[in-house]
Structure formats: structure tokens, C-alpha cells
């Protein structure tokens, strides 16, 4: 992933001098160089630049060096050596993360797993694929298509993102209401702990002895262990799918329609929603011809032809009863793909509306949709920044996209504050600050809003169980209690930062 503008240079708080850093770099490179094949380490400034950031490109930092292992033994060598020298390690898959999880540390190694990109085994009778962590999500489905199988979780980034990154973020996709998240579709992982120990969690059966450490690794954002192999479950490809697209004059009516579909007892494969801003952006971007309306619902059903045909009629009826002014049902595979193309292009379409956009990821109980949308509207007016909305409506996962221009003084900061307040509104509605993109560095302050100090401490204790030295991706995902105290204090003072010139990070 390239790193477009804008750019904030983040400096480490440790305050290591250039000199100290280059001495460390030299020593580490010498020790690792003895254990790794040539070409595994990148240390020159030019080589490091592509790894400065993930897809949350507002945050950038150059790592001490980048290690690009090809084997588990090489990963072990890197981790053991870093452990010995107390050098922090940040794992990275494809760098498509949206929360800064793979943001490097100046004094740390960026462990890039993208060269571990082999499909190791496809077990058709047991419907499993054993792959290396750098394998791209979509590649798995492509590899097993000949057997009529596929890997269900399909994040919109699936052509690029890695399966290791998917596990680390517990990625979701458009179809997760019916088929689940990454955690529901992974049989086992092999991980290497910071001290270089290699262990398998889970297995090829449907469960494994002991605690569900496999579940714990999902969404752990590279803080517990490095994932070096993933065995995913494969499903038979549904033979048939149809989508219904319904236009609503009011966005709350669209929300009610979503609730009615679910209450009726059908379980759609995908259930998505867009607001007017998003529909306009999409219609201006490609020729999908969505009706001009306040809210659009897309409902996809899949299964056998008999099953889908009978249910799509029922769903169309529910949409009409809920007040849809127009309902279109796909009559061919071509039409289905065309109707989806607008939703799939939502991000790039919105990307044309403003120089920059900032993607939020709050999840709420669906019944509070209208309320939270109104709050977002009020916040958007207050901060004088437009927000367009696209949701995984079936599971209440909202992606408000905040439009801004980083070249305009103060807009990025306003966008971040607006984003933070949207997330706090999600928590207040009984939801969460992140449904699928992870906390990373981006939402670390909002963790203080969602969790109490004792809960955060429990997270720290659990991290220490895996990584007692705290060297894996430190500073991400779970805030220190001190940080929360500081953030809380900021809140008391009316949301104004006490030291505006200090880098807030």
C-alpha cells in the first residue's frame, strides 16, 4: 500500500538520539545478518520509506529496520534476537490496516510477513486450507475455486490484505452477518511468541483442548504473538445469489426495513445501507444509476436457486411494506454484480469528494441507528466537516466517512476530534468504537471511554501472559492507565487540549 498525503511525523517519546539509534541499528543488523539470508533486512532510508505507515497514512514513522522473513525459523531468529536486545517488534501484513496498527516504532523492527505468501496445503475432504500469513485473502478463494469451495470472510480490501492481518484484526466483510468474521472461519494458527517459541493454537478438528487461545489471537493486533501460519475453513460456494435494492425517502425508514427483514426470519448473506451523501458520490463516480433518495438498502440472499427465489420475493415485500419507494431485484448474475458495484466503489467514490477522508468503524445496536445518525449530523455541522455514511447494516457496523483537506490548517485535527466524538456516541448507544478495523493507534483514547481502568488492566495482564517484556507492538490497541487519566482530564476541560503544540498521539 502506498502512503498518500497527509503526513504527521511522529517521533518517539523515548527520545533516543540519532546516534544511539544508528548504533542500535548497526548492532542489531550485525546480529541478525548472521542468522538470516541476504536480502532479508532493509536498513537504508529509501528502503524503509514504503513501510512508514499503513492505510491510516496520517501517521508515519520510520522503523529502525525492516525484516522480511520467508520461513518460520527466520521469524524465530528475528524475535529471539529482538527479545535478547529488548528491541520492540511491529508485525505487518499487507499494510491495509485502517487504524495504524502496523505503524512502526523508530527504535523497533518492522517484521514484514508479506514474503511468506505460500498456500501450503489444500485439504478438500476436510475443507481446510493451510497457508502462510502473507497470503492475500482473495488468493485463497481463487486457489480453491476448482473444488467448488471458497473462504467466506471478504473484507473490501480482500485483493490486497493478508490472512495474517485478517486474523490480527478479526476482519469482517460484507457477508459476515451470515458467514461470520475471521474468528468463525479459522481452524488454527501457528504463532511465534516474542521469545521465539513456536506453538499451534486450535487444530483441524472443530475444537481443541484447553483455553480458546485461538479466539484470543483474533483481533489481538500483533500484541500477543506473531502469526506464522493460518489454517482456514472453506465453505461450498453458494450456487445462486440475488440482490434486492430498495430506495427510501427517509433514512430511519431504511433502518426499520433492515430490522423488519431480520425479524422476518431470513438471514441475508449481505445487508448494506448508504445515505444520500454516499449515494450521490457513487452515482457521480460510476454508472450504477442508484435512485436519488435518502437511504438505500441492499439485501443479498444466497443458497440454492429454489431457496433464494422464494425468499427474494418475501424480502421485496418487506421492503415495500417498510415504505420503499422503489425496489429493484437482480434478474441475472450480471445485474447482481452491477447493483453491487456501487456499494463496492463507495470508498473510492467518496474519495473524490474531498482531498482526504477519514473512515470510522463504530458498531451500534441497530435500533439506535436513527439516533446515532442524527448525532453524527449535529457533530458534522459543529465541526464544519461533511460526513457521508455507509454501513454494514445487518450487523450495525457503521462506516461514517469524514471528508477533510489535510492541507487546510487544522482540518485533520478537526476530523480526528469529530471522529472521536462519533465513536463516543457509538459507545453511549451501547455499541463499540471498532467493529472490524481495530484500535491500533487511532482509537486508543476512545478505549478509555469504552473500558474501565480495571478492564484495561485485565487486558494488560493478559498481554503480559504472552509477552511479559512488552516488546510486541507496544503502545497500540490498549492504552496505559496513565494515558487514560490524561485523556480523561482533557475531556473535563471541554475537549480542548491543554498543550496544543504537543504532538497528540
Amino acid at each position, binding site marked *: 500500500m502506498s502512503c498518500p498525503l497527509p503526513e504527521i511525523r511522529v517521533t518517539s517519546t523515548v527520545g533516543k538520539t540519532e546516534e544511539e539509534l544508528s548504533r542500535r541499528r548497526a548492532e542489531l543488523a550485525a546480529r541478525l545478518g548472521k542468522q538470516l539470508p541476504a536480502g532479508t533486512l532493509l536498513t537504508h532510508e529509501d528502503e524503509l520509506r514504503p513501510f512508514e505507515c499503513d492505510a491510516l497514512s496520517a501517521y508515519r514513522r520510520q522503523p529502525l529496520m525492516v525484516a522480511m522473513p520467508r520461513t518460520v525459523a527466520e521469524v524465530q531468529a528475528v524475535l529471539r534476537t529482538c527479545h535478547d536486545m529488548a528491541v520492540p517488534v511491529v508485525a505487518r501484513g499487507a499494510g491495509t490496516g485502517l487504524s495504524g496498527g502496523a505503524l512502526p516504532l523508530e527504535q523497533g523492527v518492522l517484521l514484514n510477513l508479506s514474503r511468506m505468501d505460500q498456500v501450503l496445503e489444500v485439504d478438500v475432504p476436510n475443507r481446510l486450507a493451510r497457508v502462510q500469513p502473507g497470503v492475500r485473502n482473495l488468493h485463497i478463494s481463487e486457489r480453491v475455486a476448482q473444488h467448488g469451495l471458497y473462504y467466506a470472510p471478504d473484507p473490501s480490501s480482500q485483493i490486497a490484505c493478508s490472512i495474517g492481518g485478517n486474523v490480527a484484526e478479526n476482519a469482517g466483510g460484507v457477508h459476515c452477518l451470515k458467514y461470520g468474521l475471521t474468528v468463525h472461519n479459522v481452524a488454527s494458527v501457528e504463532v511465534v511468541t516474542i521469545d521465539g517459541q513456536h506453538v499451534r493454537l486450535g487444530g483441524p478438528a472443530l475444537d481443541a*483442548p484447553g483455553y480458546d487461545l485461538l479466539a484470543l489471537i483474533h483481533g489481538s493486533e500483533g500484541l500477543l504473538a506473531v502469526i506464522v501460519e493460518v489454517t482456514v475453513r472453506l465453505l461450498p460456494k453458494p450456487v445462486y445469489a440475488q440482490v434486492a435494492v430498495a430506495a427510501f425517502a427517509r433514512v430511519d425508514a431504511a433502518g426499520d426495513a433492515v430490522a423488519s427483514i431480520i425479524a422476518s426470519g431470513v438471514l441475508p448473506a449481505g445487508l448494506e445501507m448508504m445515505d444520500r451523501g454516499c449515494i450521490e458520490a457513487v452515482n457521480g463516480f460510476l454508472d450504477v444509476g442508484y435512485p436519488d433518495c435518502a437511504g438505500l438498502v441492499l439485501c443479498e440472499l444466497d443458497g440454492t436457486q429454489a431457496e433464494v427465489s422464494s425468499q427474494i420475493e418475501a424480502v421485496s415485500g418487506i421492503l415495500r411494506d417498510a415504505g420503499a419507494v422503489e425496489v429493484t431485484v437482480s434478474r441475472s448474475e450480471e445485474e447482481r454484480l452491477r447493483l453491487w458495484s456501487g456499494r463496492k466503489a463507495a470508498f473510492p467514490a467518496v474519495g473524490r469528494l474531498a482531498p482526504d477522508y477519514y473512515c470510522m468503524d463504530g458498531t451500534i445496536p441497530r435500533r439506535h441507528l436513527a439516533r446515532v445518525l442524527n448525532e453524527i449530523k449535529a457533530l458534522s455541522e459543529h465541526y464544519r466537516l461533511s460526513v457521508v455514511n455507509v454501513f454494514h447494516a445487518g450487523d450495525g457496523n457503521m462506516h461514517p466517512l469524514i471528508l477533510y483537506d489535510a492541507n487546510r490548517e487544522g482540518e485533520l485535527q478537526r476530523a480526528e476530534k469529530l471522529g472521536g466524538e462519533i465513536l463516543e456516541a457509538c459507545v453511549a448507544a451501547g455499541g463499540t468504537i471498532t467493529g472490524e478495523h481495530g484500535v491500533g493507534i487511532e482509537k486508543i483514547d476512545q478505549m478509555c471511554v469504552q473500558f474501565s481502568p480495571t478492564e484495561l488492566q*485485565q487486558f494488560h495482564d493478559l498481554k503480559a501472559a504472552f509477552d511479559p517484556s512488552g516488546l510486541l507492538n507496544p503502545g497500540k490497541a490498549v492504552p496505559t492507565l496513565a494515558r487514560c487519566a490524561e485523556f480523561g482530564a482533557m475531556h473535563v476541560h471541554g475537549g480542548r487540549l491543554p498543550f496544543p503544540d504537543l504532538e497528540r498521539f
Partner: protein
Amino acid sequence: MTAGNSVSIPPDADLTEALQNAIHAALADQRPLEILGSGSKRFLGRESSGQRLDIGGHRGIVTYEPSELVMTARSGTPLAEIESLLGRHGQMLAFEPPHFGPGATLGGTVACNLAGPRRPYAGATRDFVLGTRVINGKGEILRFGGEVMKNVAGYDISRLMAGAMGTLGLLLEVSLKVLPAPRVEATLAFERDEPQALVDMNRCAGRPLPVSAAAWCAGVMYVRLSGSETGVAAACAELGGDEMLPDTALAFWDALKEQRLAAFSGEGVLWRLSLPPATGSLPLDAESVIDWGGAQRWLRTDEDAERVRWVAGEAGGHAVAFKDGDRQGSVFHPMGGVLMQLHRRVKDALDPHGLFNPGRMYAGL
């Protein structure tokens, strides 16, 4: 909740405070606890020391929003009460949990992570856990996850609680994802020997059919289909076999889930082998009952525990001495050194004084 019944049913009650006090008292006296719902699964696992702490009184459904597909209940709530409420709204616990007794509670069900015939096609208990409120081993009340389908804020401690046999904390409340119950179900029966049944069940699972259960017992393979009327009818036509009468089919799946089929009783230890589903017939001297499309095998045998575990391990799976085994020794499959070390540290992180169900899963945990 259920009325018109002469047995008096305890009212809903929130005993959080009392339970927290009991834990603080136990901490002060350094006295371990055995957490107990109704005791329906007390036979499972190693014998635990510890003073009984009954959570059965901590009961009641806290929230249920059918259109959100989410239900939250206190851990002592009877499973039967939850299932009947969901049933009235056309919904279900898709993991089809076994009860093993009339009083089975939600807490015990989640702690044991047991699931019924629908498991391979719908998911296990752990797959449906969205959030929990727990008391950890320091007596702190903590909330993890929530009532939303997707949530990656913080480590997934809720799911970790599923299957931990109560050794990591006391569950106060659990939020579960629920699913619409299928409109129609049909069960097809086929005469098959075991090897052929295993091949057929896995072939079936690899095809886009609305299969919701597949089992084999005493020469007959059973395949259940669930969905819309037309969908199920089309799948039945495609698969052939003899369609069972609805009541007979219902009784069969229930007897399989609750272990009332004849093959579950008898001499020896009742072993549960959890295996990659396509594993062939096992080289053991007892006939299996096969559930989960091949992934779960039950058998009664006197064979040496080491040998049963070796067979399961060779196939890539694991074995549990589910019932009537030596409850002082190993019940669950032994784990390797690094994995066991991680387990100890995770236990220490959540229950540093070893308060909850000591030894129930593994000695020393």
C-alpha cells in the same frame, strides 16, 4: 417465566453483589471455589476441590431484541427458559446446546462450550458469544464485548471464557447472538456402513446444500436439512434416501444430543473424540456414534486411555474422557509444554490466586 406448573420456580434475581461478596470472602480466606449452576454437567472434567458457590439463583433474561438477533441473560438462567422464549419469536440458539439435565443453565453451557448436531454448519457456543460480564479472580466485575455482532475493541476475553470450565472467572451475564429458526426441517436416512457414511457426510458438506446435521449410528446415516420449504424440498429430491417422520426425526436428534441413544450407555469410559471430519473409521475396539458430520465421535470402551488419545492425536484431533473415566487423572487431552505454559500464564492473568474451579480442566490450572 413458565407458568401453570406446580413446581415453584425461583424468581429472577440479580445476585451480583452477593456473588462478589462471596468471592471476596473466599479470597480473604484463601479458599477455592467450585462454581455451580444446576450441576447438570458436574460429571464433566476433573474432580475439583473448592467450596460450592451456587449461581443458580442469579437468573433472568436481561435483554432480548429479536430484530437485533441478540439476547443477554444472567448466567443462572435455565437454558430451557431461554430456548422457549426464543422459540416464541421464531428464533433459536443455533449451536443447539445439549442440556444433560432439566436445570441446565446458560453459564454452565457457555463454560463447557458444548454444542449439538448443528455445530459444524452453524458454529459452536463460542462462536455465538458476543459479550460477557464476569467477576475475575481478584473479585473485580468486568465487562467485555457487548451486544453487537462485531467488536474488536480489546482482547476477546468473552470468547476465552467459553470452554474454560469456569477456571478463568465467574460468568455473571452472557450476550449471545441468536438466529432465526428454520421454517422447515427434514431428515433423510440412508443405510450405510461407517466408512461410506464418513465419505458421504463430508461430500455433502462440501456441496452447497442446506445441511444442518449429519450423523451415523448403527448402520444408518442421518442427514438433516433446514431452510425454506422449497429449498429443503429441492435438497431432499437431490439427495434421495428415506425421509423420516418429523416426530421420529426430532426424537432422534434430541436423543443424539442428550446422549440417550443406546450406544451411549454401557461399560467402560464414554470417550468423545474431536477429529477432522473426514477421518476414517477408528482403529479402536468399539463402535462409534458419529455426530458433527464426522468431526465428533462417541464411543464406550475399556481400551487404555493412552491408546484412545494416541488414535485421536494421530488423526489430528483430541480425546476427552467425557464420562465415567478417572476424574483424578487426565480427562482432557494433555497439552505440550509451550502451550501448557501459556495456559498457566493466562490463568494467572485472570485468576491469580487460583480461586475458581482449581484442577477442573488440568491439574494445576
